[in-house]
């Protein structure tokens, strides 16, 4: 992999981190409404995974979607504007934090009913298959989604019909506040693939290059042979959402994981491998922070969506 690409990935992870940190502040200031689920700690997953896709490959994910949106190429400005409910947001201020999407960039959302987007992924892959497209649908979901019926219905159907879906479970060890082992009969989510005769792999999610390698291999396999379940072991440093009292884990546990910060690991890798000097990476940190500040300015200055977006024809609505 060439240096430009490695540095692009590094910078993208930092943009996601800064965007999330600043979002938390804006939420506390009351500028972001609703629920806010931060991706901090999981950046290596969205960056490594999406870096492996081709432009025709569709991406769909759950509600912890800001990082995935950035990795899919949605400008930070449009993400931030959506969080602030502005018409310049990627969903015109109609969706909010949990419902980012950009169909032009083949990012199909941001879905907030746990597990419900898995059948959507199967259906999009079916459409590509029926129309002779070589595209793969990459469907990301949390460990919590693997206990709901949708997961099993969708994985089963994808094998029966050999649909081009890469199922990606981001196992961050908790479904909201309930630890995986308290909710799932098996601790390793990949084991669930066996019930459908589906191949699977489990990788460390703190190493962006390892995630990318696994994703490239898995996508290759899906293109030739059908569905694959990739489990990525990861950890969110912040609560489930901003309203999480975090009674279910200790600060020592969080600190231990923070020592394995995926951005820190990648930074060290780039310096030790002599790919980049610390100063170069510092400069990227600064430019990433500037991009996020610019996005906030843009979002704050953007107009609110007008009522005509929701009520194009009031008479027709009440008829």
């Amino acid at each position, binding site marked *: 992999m060439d240096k430009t690409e490695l540095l692009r990935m590094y910078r993208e992870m930092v943009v996601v981190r800064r965007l999330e940190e600043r979002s938390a502040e804006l939420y506390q200031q009351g500028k972001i409404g609703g629920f806010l689920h931060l991706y901090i700690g999981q950046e290596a997953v969205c960056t490594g995974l999406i870096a492996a896709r081709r432009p025709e490959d*569709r991406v769909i994910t759950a509600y912890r979607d800001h990082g995935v949106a950035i990795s899919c190429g949605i400008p930070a400005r449009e993400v931030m504007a959506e969080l602030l409910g502005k018409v310049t*947001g*990627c*969903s*015109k*201020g*109609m*969706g909010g934090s949990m*419902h980012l*999407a*950009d*169909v*032009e960039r083949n990012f*199909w*959302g*941001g879905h907030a*009913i746990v597990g*419900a987007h*898995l*059948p*959507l*992924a*199967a*259906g*999009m*892959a*079916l*459409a*590509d298959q*029926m*129309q002779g497209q070589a595209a793969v649908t990459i469907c990301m979901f949390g460990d919590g989604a693997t206990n709901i*019926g*949708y997961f099993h*219905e*969708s994985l*089963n*159907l994808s094998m*029966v*019909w050999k649909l081009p879906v890469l199922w990606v479970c981001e196992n961050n060890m908790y479904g909201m506040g309930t630890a995986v082992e308290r909710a799932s009969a098996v601790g390793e989510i990949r084991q669930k693939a066996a019930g459908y005769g589906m191949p699977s792999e489990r990788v460390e999610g703190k190493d962006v290059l390892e995630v990318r390698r696994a994703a490239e291999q898995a996508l290759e396999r899906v293109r030739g042979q059908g569905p694959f379940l990739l489990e990525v072991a990861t950890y969110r440093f912040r609560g489930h959402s901003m309203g999480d009292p975090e009674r279910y884990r200790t600060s020592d546990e969080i600190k231990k994981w923070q020592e394995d910060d995926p951005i820190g690991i990648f930074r060290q890798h780039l310096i030790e491998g002599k790919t980049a000097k610390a100063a170069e990476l510092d400069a990227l940190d600064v430019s990433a922070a500037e991009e996020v500040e610019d996005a906030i300015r843009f979002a704050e200055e953007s107009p609110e969506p007008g009522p005509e*977006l*929701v009520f194009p024809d009031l008479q*027709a*609505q009440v*008829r």
Partner: protein
Amino acid sequence: MAMLTMREAISQALWEEMERDRRVFIMGEEVGVWGGTYAVTKGFYDHFGAERVRDTPIAEGVIVGAANGAALAGLRPVAELMTINFAFLAMDQIVNHSAKLGPMFGGQMSVPIVIRAVSGGGRQLGATHSQTPDVVFAHFPGLNVIAPGTPADAKGLLKAAIRSGEPTMFIEHATLYQARGEVPEGDYTEPIGVSKIQRPGGDVTIISYSKMLQVSLQAADKLAKEGIEAEVVDLRTLRPLDMGPILESFRKTNRAVIAEEGWLSYGIGAEVSARLYEQAFDHVDAPIRRVGQKEVALPYNRRLEQMAMPQEADVIAAVKAVM
């Protein structure tokens, strides 16, 4: 005009739309090799092939969910639910996805799905297989809900639904498949969201749809022999609800009965009568009456099941009460 059964009319609509548009395909339980549990898709599998007439696992969540996904990606799926009672297993997909993905993402997605579901009681199938919960689906903005009562409307409205590009629940009544009626020759559609006067009359307005439309028409014939001319308005579409012909008729007759097969509480009759009181209060000559199902789980026993379901005699009695 040709005389067709409801089954033949629906089957023709599907067949013609699949011939017309390569993007249209069918998925559901037993739609293919079996030929459809109500034989609506008989012969489709051999003609269109397994690719476009897709037998699915018995898993309603992923049937509607994957059809939603295929619709997002540009196809025109027709998902079949063997009975509307099973739609509850797919309720999240219907309510939170078919109806919401368009508006929720600012209009960048559309979900051109048609969900065909078989509704209605009266076949001794017990409480969970006999419900007529059509109105439940009509509660949600973003979903068109069509429930035809004649073969001609069934064919024209199903074709319109498939072409509309909008998420649609298309509700067929289980005991209407053998009903016969005149169906226009050739390609035609009927407008979605337009009520229709199926029988003219000047004394009282009966508002109904689907199976109870047929029951109401029979009741109207009997009432005519007693000198009462009922005008029967067919809703055809539950959402959007077209009050136009209803108001026009009511302003003429000043008396109304609303007949539906489902439970009365929070039902079609409640909605239509509220709108009549709101929009035509000055024309009310008698309290508006509603006819519907007794508020119980339908029993298996034939006599008790029929006692719980609305009958022709109930419509006649309600009409006499408002005269």
